């Protein structure tokens, strides 16, 4: 939202309206030029938007209010994990196994609906809370006491791509900024030698909405996620084969002299100064990224605890290595880490889209997810990182309590599903919201994903209604015009 006086200001001027909250950034000579001029032009008003110094786009910036969490880890399970096989225990569904769902839909996303089907795994009480969690994920289940579950989330789409967009960007359409983009735009980073926002794709491939999940949308390109994993390094981090290190160095230092000379001939040009700074940051990344991705320095017991040494299951070992990489990035002050489990649409073979053979496929997927992800969270806790790191586990929607007709799997269900949080600022051992007794729909404390995303921003000290970016006539937000912080899961 903008005010009516601001209408007459340039966008730069409007940005300035919001400087007060974000002045934590140490102004350089460069930004002070712009600042002075804007002061002269527009006068001083209060506001909420971050101000980006182009030569230091990742400088740490101060949030709207004192944050509970400084960093975020999002464990993103692509393909829609069934809430009924994991966290949302439905004894009634066991009773009604094989019966038709009275008044249920005849046709769901993919076609005709079959009969109700019991959870495909046994559930048992866990920890102090005694919350029922399934045997599919025994390691994650051990963390139950630390987790705040939200069982009553809803999505705006029942199609994977738009629904992943919705989860990651707050819009079902392609082309909106991702949550990590918003966070790094707002807050910059604590580490100037690494990207502020890193996306770690699954060893099996990219998730269904692919780059939408970490794209900048219309935010400045600085704030997109940099995708790399333990097995796939940052693209173009090194020069191609055949270029000698001497030639590399010579080209870099010649370039530095050329650009410095050019800047001297164009004094005061901030764009040119920013370009020089970008090459300096790139050079620092060339040193720090390989170092952080080099897991050979991890002790054997750590590798083992994550399952990174599981030679019999290379996909699990690959995901485990990504989990270790995630921890190292967070340890080093990266603002937002997105860790994917599950890849693109593949009839449920490569992700959680269990339409036809849910149990068979989930046996495979849970083996990959469970031990490494649980080890990651335990490791973060042991190292004290959960003091200022929020951990989010999410998936784009849930699944139906019925099996699909003629199949052994469940169809898409955006009407009530579970995601959870743990770590900084999160109330441990909470189960918030309810689906009906069969897990078909959310019925109590219903939260569209807007609320979930608003809560994540809130924990970072950001008011989702005040964190905006102007685009095509609208002050855009992660939460569109919706969203209420879910207070019940806050510590």
């Amino acid at each position, binding site marked *: 939202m903008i*005010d*009516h*006086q601001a209408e007459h200001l*340039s966008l*730069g001027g409007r940005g300035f309206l919001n400087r007060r909250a974000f002045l934590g950034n140490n102004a350089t000579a460069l930004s002070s030029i*712009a600042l002075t*001029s*804007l002061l002269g*032009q527009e006068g001083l008003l209060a506001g909420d938007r971050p101000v980006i110094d182009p030569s230091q*786009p990742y400088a740490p910036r101060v949030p709207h209010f004192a944050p509970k969490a400084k960093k975020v880890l999002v464990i993103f399970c692509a393909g829609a994990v069934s809430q009924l096989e994991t966290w949302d225990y439905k004894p009634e569904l066991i009773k009604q196994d094989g019966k038709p769902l009275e008044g249920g839909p005849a046709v*769901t*996303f993919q*076609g005709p609906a079959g009969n109700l089907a019991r959870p495909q795994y046994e559930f048992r009480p866990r920890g102090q809370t005694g919350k029922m969690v399934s045997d599919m994920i025994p390691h994650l289940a051990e963390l139950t006491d630390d987790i705040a579950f939200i069982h009553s989330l809803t999505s705006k789409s029942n*199609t994977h*791509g*738009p629904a*992943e*967009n919705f989860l990651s960007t707050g819009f079902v*359409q*392609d*082309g909106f900024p991702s949550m990590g983009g918003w966070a790094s735009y707002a807050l910059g980073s604590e580490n100037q030698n690494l*990207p502020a926002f890193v996306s770690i794709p699954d060893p099996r491939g990219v998730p*269904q909405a692919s*780059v939408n999940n970490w*794209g900048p*949308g219309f935010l400045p*390109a600085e704030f997109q996620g940099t995708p790399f994993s333990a097995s796939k390094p940052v*693209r*173009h981090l*090194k*020069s*191609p084969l055949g270029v000698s290190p001497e*030639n590399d160095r*010579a*080209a870099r230092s*010649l*370039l530095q*002299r050329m*650009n410095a*000379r050019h800047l001297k001939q164009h*004094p*005061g040009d901030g*764009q040119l100064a*920013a*370009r020089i*700074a*970008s090459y300096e*940051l*790139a050079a620092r*990344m060339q040193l720090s990224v390989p170092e952080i991705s080099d897991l050979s320095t991890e002790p054997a017991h750590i590798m083992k605890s994550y399952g990174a040494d599981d030679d019999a299951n290379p996909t699990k070992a690959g995901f485990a290595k990504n989990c270790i990489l995630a921890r190292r990035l967070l340890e080093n002050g990266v603002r937002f880490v997105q860790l994917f489990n599950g890849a*693109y*649409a593949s*009839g449920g073979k490569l992700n959680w889209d269990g*339409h*036809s053979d849910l149990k068979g496929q989930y046996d495979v997927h849970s083996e990959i997810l469970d031990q490494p992800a649980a080890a990651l969270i335990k490791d973060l806790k042991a190292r004290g990182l959960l003091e200022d790191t929020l951990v989010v586990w999410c998936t784009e929607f849930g699944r139906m309590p019925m099996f699909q007709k003629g*199949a052994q799997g469940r169809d898409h269900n955006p009407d009530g599903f579970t995601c959870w949080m743990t770590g900084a600022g999160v109330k441990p051992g909470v189960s918030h919201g309810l689906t009906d007794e069969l897990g078909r729909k959310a019925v109590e404390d219903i939260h569209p994903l807007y609320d979930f995303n608003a809560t994540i921003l809130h924990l970072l000290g950001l008011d989702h209604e005040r964190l905006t970016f*102007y685009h*095509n*006539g*609208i002050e855009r937000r992660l939460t569109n015009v919706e969203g209420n912080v879910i207070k019940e899961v806050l510590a």
Partner: protein
Amino acid sequence: MKLQFTIAFILFSAGGKLSAGSIDFVRDIRPIFEGNCYDCHGADKQKSGLRLDMRSGAFDAGEFHQPTIIPGKADESNLIRFVRGDDEEMRMPPKGERLTKDEIATLTAWIEQGAIWPEEVDLVKPVDRTDHWSFKPLKPFDGDQNIDFFVREKLTSNGLVMSPPADRLTWLRRVSFDLTGLPPTPEQIAAFLVDTDPGAHARVVDRLLSSPRYGERWAQHWLDVVRYADTHGFEVNTPRANAWPYRDYVIEAFNNDTPFDKFIREQLAGDQFGKDAATGFLVTAARLLPGQIGKDAASLRLARQDELGEIVINTSEAFLGLSVGCARCHNHKFDAISAKDYYSMQAFFAGVSYGERPIQSSKSETELEQAEKLKSRIREIDRAFENLVPRVSPGVERPPVNALLNIDRFTPVKARKVRFTIKKTNLYEPCIDELEVFDSQGNNIALASLGVERSASTTKVSANQHQIEFINDGRFGNERSWMCGQTTGWIMLKFPHEHTIERIVWARDRNGKYADRLAVEYVIEVANDSDDWVVVADSTDRRSGDPKIQRDLSTLDPKQQTKTKSLLEEKKQVEIRLAELTNSQKIFGGIFGKPEPMHLLNRGDAEQPMEAVVPAVLSALGDVTLAKDAPDPERRLALANWITTPKNPLTARVAINRIWQGHFGIGLVETANDFGRAGTAPSHPKLLDWLASEFIRSGWSVKHLHRLIVRSETYRQSEQINSIAQAKDADVRLLWRYPSRRLEAESIRDTMLAVSGRLDLKTGGPGFDLFTSRGGLSGFPPITKFKDDGLRRMIYAHKIRMEPDSVFGAFDCPDAGQSVSRRRQSTTPIQALNLFNSQLTIDESEAFAQRVRDKVGQEVRAQITYTYELAYGRTPEPDELTDAKSVVRQNGLPTLCRAIFNSSEFLFIP
């Protein structure tokens, strides 16, 4: 954000208890609103479109399309329902303390008494949203004004002056990059520097504007706005193989200087003007393909609304600079655009859907007749051939099953249902691309379009590839096939009524790519209504053999063999002739049909239709309205004509602003897609209006505008920064210098190739590949080594929606998700890594060095000089020469070239 209403709030003492019978709004009601409602329904926020701090807002329908306050009817007024909490979910206020019983009673009594709210007591006044600069007519101009006059006027009033002119080389490089996206060659530079004739500048401009390179550059600006891509987007992101004719149309339109009003009309209704490819505009958005949309009716309705919504967004943003799309769910927050306006605008497109079709061409009637004859000859040949296939009968051996085509002929039999059961395949689950059932007249009566229903034992769904619907959709090939969910199973067709059938034709993949999943053991049965199944054919009488051999003629007698061969030869010839005759390019464009009825949707929800709407232009700007049964082309033409009438205050302003932005990097209005109240005001209102008038006067000639701009003194100024002016106007909005800026992604790549000497100037046609995939699910591995078509200008790349090019995507290349009205100029370390370390940079550095060596030989000084001339259009200064020499001697010429490709001087429009 709270300062515009300097409201002197009057404080009330909360004492006044309700005395029955005399409720005063100011005394009794407003304090309740103030205390409980204004946080969300006041000046700052109007949740659900409701504000309670002014009379007009409170009695407005808001998003619920039902007035919040209905005088005299408290029980029906949402205000009372909500504060009472009739529906717990809608209780107001939603948080904090509820209204007291007394307060609710006061409100109820007030409404019952007629809800008297005198207008004059309001502390804030409603804003007239139509009272907005861009909604007002263009002012007429007289006298000899020009661009420089208006720019100087504004500079002077701000105590600034224009910078001195740039040197001739700088101007030439600037205008060349600006108009064509490519640098001038050393020869062009030399010729211009010695041409001291006063007409020299104008001649350069004419040369550049008549070059095909011009359209290739300026079309890109437009494609950014309309979010053009060569894939459908979303998760499947399949190729949109025939999107490119629209891209080529836009390039040609710029090259031909198509009048801009005509350009708009063609994009909305090009099918009416022989410019069919232009209708690609209507369908540029990302789109869910049928296989990705839920099968339930609500999902289908939502998908249709989304499809139409994208057309409204594109049309209103691109041509009118208004975000009408915002009004889909609620009245526009800032502009005079209601939800009804949105749905009325949508109604212009009610007959438009997305799809691929042949470009309408000017084929003559005789040609079309001829084509029809050829088609029926092909059908005759097919029938003749198929009649040679042996019928199922005892003792007759039939050819082996093959992947390309199988014909099962049998004695004519009456059937209501046909069941095809697969007992064994050669590999994996069975797959059939099409099941055709022919009656005695040779008609395929199995098509879904004839109302034939299908069912299967199990189906393995792979969106857009294997679906049960594809078994009888009349389309062939693996990507339109049915796959069984298990290794054995059946598929059944049920006809609307009984037919006499005699032939069933099926295949694994008639396109010949796949030979696995072939039903090698099968049974075909028919039944009437009674479900008594009768076997008409099975695989037991088929010989075994290679499934890849198509025509096994060995069972035929020699005479039949000869006849078959000659028939097949004839068929081939006929098909070639038919292809020549009907040869027409396809376009992914608008498909036009009968408009469906349109309704206002409550809060944008397709499941809550309200009143019907007819096509009507935005009520704040015009009164063109069509009848509810107006046919499709009439609708789109009416909208196009309204948009392009010179009286429309927005169209010309929005257009010239985009052109201006192309030249200066920023428009006179900074928010090029938003001329509404949330957009910025113009930096030079008079100049904007003068240019718009001049544009219309010139017959909407874009090239005329280019000439006016690039030949102006404003444009010719030096780019150098003057610290005093900088302190006053750092953003250079007042144009006290030429605002230099980084080249766009495409221009960087094109310029590297031009300088290395490898740029391929082939125009038009399908795009070249930046990735090893042209679309699909499994990711986009980038191509790193480019040759042949890969060296074309980047506008000719096959553009993958959302997937940035691995090197240049990082340079703010739009992703074709949402409209990009103006590219950002970000500077990131990823850009630096890509440009410094990509294979393309290394390869072009080598090619560049080779080009230089080929031209000037081995002498290092000459090499460096020519390298500078090609890259920067100038010779090196002595200090540069010294520095470069030592690098070239020690590290080779390609090392210098690599540094140059990364240098600011190379990357900036000066």
